[in-house]
C-alpha cells in the first residue's frame, strides 16, 4: 500500500479488498466488552480539521483510540481570508511533534496533496474541498458488501449503484465513482445538469438526469446532501423543486427492487434529498454506515501505520 491515503483513485483493487477484509476483522473488536487493541500503542495520530466535521472527526478518533494510538485533535478555525498560520507551518509543527499520521479535513481541494509533500508521516484525507473523501467511499463499499452478503475477498461485481445529487461539489461522489467502479459495480450519477461537471465523459460511470428511470435498475441508491445555498447561485430554482425532482420519497422508494438499499453519507436534510420515512426505513443503511466508518478507518490506520505484515 501507499504511505498516504489521499485519493480513492490511487488505490488498487488488491489494496481496497485488503482494507475491507481487515475492517471486517477489526469490526469484531466492536462486539467485545473491551473495544481496544494494542496495535498502535505509542503511535501518534493527529486529527487536523480545518472544517467543522464532528462526525468524521469522532469516527477517526474512535478508530485511532481502539487501536491504542495517542490522538491529538487540532481544530483550526478555517478562514481563508484571515489565514494566520500557513498550512506549511502547521505541517512543520506537526512534524516536530512527531505525528505518525495526520488525518486532514480541509475546504481546499488538494490540501492533503500539499501536506504529504511537507510531512514524513502518513497523510489520510478526511475530505478535501470538492475533491475526495476516500474513507467515506471505503465505508460505503464495506456497507454495500455486507448488505449484499458478500464476504472477505469478494468485490461488488454486478451491483448497480445510483448516486444522486450535487455531484459537482461532492467529494463523496468522486471517491465513490472511482472506488465502486474499481470493485466492479456499475455506477450511475443522477443530478440536475447544473450540478454535474461539464466534462464528465472520462469518468467510469454513466450519467442521467432522470431519477425515476434509474430507480428500478438500482441495487443501491446513494443520496448526497444538497446544500441549500446552492439555490442562491442558481444551480436550481428552489429547494422544493429540487426535492420534487431529485428527492427520495416513499413513492420513489417503492420503485426500487425489493432488496435494494438506501445510503446517505450524512448529515441529512430530511425532507429535502431524503424523506424522513425513507431515512428511517429498514432499507436505509445510514446508521450502519456510521458504525462501519469506525471499522474501516481502523483498518486504514492499521494498514498505513502498522505495516502490511502486521495485517496478516
Amino acid at each position, binding site marked *: 500500500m501507499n504511505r498516504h491515503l489521499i485519493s480513492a483513485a490511487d488505490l488498487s483493487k488488491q489494496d481496497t479488498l485488503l482494507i475491507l477484509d481487515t475492517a471486517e476483522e477489526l469490526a469484531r473488536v466492536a462486539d467485545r466488552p473491551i473495544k481496544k487493541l494494542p496495535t498502535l500503542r505509542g503511535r501518534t495520530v493527529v486529527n487536523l480539521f480545518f472544517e467543522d466535521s464532528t462526525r468524521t472527526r469522532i469516527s477517526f478518533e474512535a478508530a485511532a483510540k481502539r487501536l491504542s494510538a495517542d490522538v491529538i485533535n487540532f481544530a483550526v478555525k478555517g478562514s481563508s481570508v484571515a489565514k494566520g498560520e500557513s*498550512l506549511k507551518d502547521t505541517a512543520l509543527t506537526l512534524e516536530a511533534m512527531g505525528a505518525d499520521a495526520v488525518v486532514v479535513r480541509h475546504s*481546499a481541494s*488538494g*490540501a492533503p496533496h500539499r501536506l504529504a509533500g511537507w510531512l514524513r508521516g502518513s497523510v489520510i484525507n478526511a475530505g478535501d*474541498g*470538492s*475533491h475526495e473523501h476516500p474513507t467515506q467511499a471505503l465505508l460505503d463499499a464495506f456497507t454495500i458488501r455486507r448488505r449484499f452478503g458478500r464476504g472477505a475477498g469478494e468485490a461488488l461485481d454486478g451491483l448497480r449503484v445510483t448516486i444522486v445529487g450535487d455531484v459537482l461539489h461532492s467529494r463523496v461522489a*468522486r471517491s465513490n465513482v472511482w472506488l465502486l467502479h474499481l470493485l466492479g459495480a456499475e455506477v450511475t450519477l443522477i443530478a440536475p445538469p447544473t450540478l454535474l461537471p461539464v*466534462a464528465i465523459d472520462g469518468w467510469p460511470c454513466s450519467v442521467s438526469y432522470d431519477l425515476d428511470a434509474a430507480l428500478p435498475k438500482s441495487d443501491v441508491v446513494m443520496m448526497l446532501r444538497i446544500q441549500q445555498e446552492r439555490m442562491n447561485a442558481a444551480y436550481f430554482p428552489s429547494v422544493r423543486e429540487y426535492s420534487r425532482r431529485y428527492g427520495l420519497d416513499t413513492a420513489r422508494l417503492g420503485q426500487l427492487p425489493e432488496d435494494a438499499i438506501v445510503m446517505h453519507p450524512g448529515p441529512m436534510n430530511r425532507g429535502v434529498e431524503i424523506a424522513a420515512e425513507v431515512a428511517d426505513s429498514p432499507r436505509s443503511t445510514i446508521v450502519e454506515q456510521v458504525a462501519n466508518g469506525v471499522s474501516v478507518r481502523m483498518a486504514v490506520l492499521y494498514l498505513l501505520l502498522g505495516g502490511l505484515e502486521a495485517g496478516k
Partner: protein
Amino acid sequence: MSTWVISGARPLGGGPADIILTDGTISAAGSGAAAPRGAQVLDATGLIALPGLVDLHTHLREPGREDAETIETGTLAAALGGFTAVHAMANTDPVADTAGVTEQIWRLGRQAGHCDVQPVGAVTVGLAGSRLAEFGAMADSAARVRVFSDDGRCVSDAVLMRRALEYVKAFDGVIAQHAQEPRLTEGAQMNEGVASGRLGLAGWPAVAEEAIIARDCLLAAHVGSALHICHVSTAGSVEIIRWAKSKGWRVTAEVTPHHLLLTDDLVASYDPVYKVNPPLRTATDVAALRAALADGTIDCVATDHAPHPVEDKETEWAVAAHGMTGLETALRVVQEAMVDTGLLGWAGVADRMSARPAVIGRLTGHGRPLAPGEPANLVLYDPAARSAVDPATHASRSRNSPFAGMTLPGQVIATFLRGRPTVLDGKPA
C-alpha cells in the same frame, strides 16, 4: 561612446554577418565591414541575432510589492531574457492610474538601465472598474503612456469599455483587455474541463474569455478604435480574433509562453506554481494558439511575467496567488514550442517578439530591423544550447517558474540596449 563589432552572427537565423554598433546605432550589417580601430569585438559565431525583444505584458511589482520584484530586478531579468523594452502593467500599489505614478515607474526604469520600461496606465481609477483614469494626463506625461489596461481585472462594464476605447483615439492609444467575464469566473481555480471535474476545483470556462473578446471586438469596430487582447488562452478566442481581423478591425492579440507549452493536466499535482490567470488550458487550445501565432492571427508573444514570493505559492491551491515568472525563459519556450516544431522561423520570432509588440505598444525605438541607421537594440542567442531551467539562478526576485526542472533549448548570450551591452556571456554586463 563605444563601438562594438559583432562578428559572425546570423541575423534572423540567416547567413553569418558582422554587425557594427556605433554610438547606439547600427552602423553596418553585412560581410566585409571593416572593424573600426579600438572597437570591442564579440565573436558571435553560430549565434542568432534578433532585434531586442519587446514585452507588452510584464508585472514589475514596484511600487508596492518590492518583496516579489523591483524595477531593478525585473528589468535585469528582462535583459537576461533578451528584452530591451518591457511594458510595466498598472496593477501596482499604488495603481499606475495617474501621471505621477507612471512617471515614477518610467524614471525608475531609466535609472536601472537594463531595459526600457514603458508604463501601462490603468483604465479605471484604482482598477476598480467604475471611473475612467486620467488617460490624457498619463499620455502627456514624461512616460508617454499609450497602452491602458486594468490587467488582472477585466473591464467588464460594456459602457466603460466603449468609452475607454473611444477616448484613447485622441492620442492613438490602445486598450489592452484582460478578458474574463467576472460572474462566470467567481471563485474559479483552473480551466473548466476534464481535469477540473476530477480534481474538484472550480472551473474557469473558456466561454468567460471568449464572450468578452467577442463583445470587445464588436465595440472596437463600432467606435473604430484599437483593441489589444491580453494573454489569449483558448481555441475559441483564436476563432473570434481571426474573424474580427478578417473584417479589418483594429484588433491585436498576445499569447504567453506558458500557454504555448503547458496544459491543465499539470494541475493534478495541486502545486500552485501552475496556477495562473487565465488558467492553463488543454492540448487542443495549445495547438490552436501555436497555429494562430504562426499564421499571425495572434500578433505577438507577451510574457505576463508575474513574480510572487515563496509564501504566496507554498500554500493550498485555492489561496495561492495567480501568476508565473517568464522573462528569463520566454525566448527558450518560444524556440521549444514554435521554432523547433517548425511552425515559425527566426524571422517570425523577431516579428512576434520584437517588431509587432513594439508597434502595438507604440514604441518607436524598438522592434526595428537589424539594418544600418537603426537603434542598436539586439539580442544574441545560442539556439544549440540546452539546459534545465533552474529558477534559483534567475535574476528575478521570485522563483515561481512553471518551467523549473524542464530541459529547454537555447541561451541568451548577449543583449545590447542602444549599443551598450546589458548582458554579456549570458550574465549581467
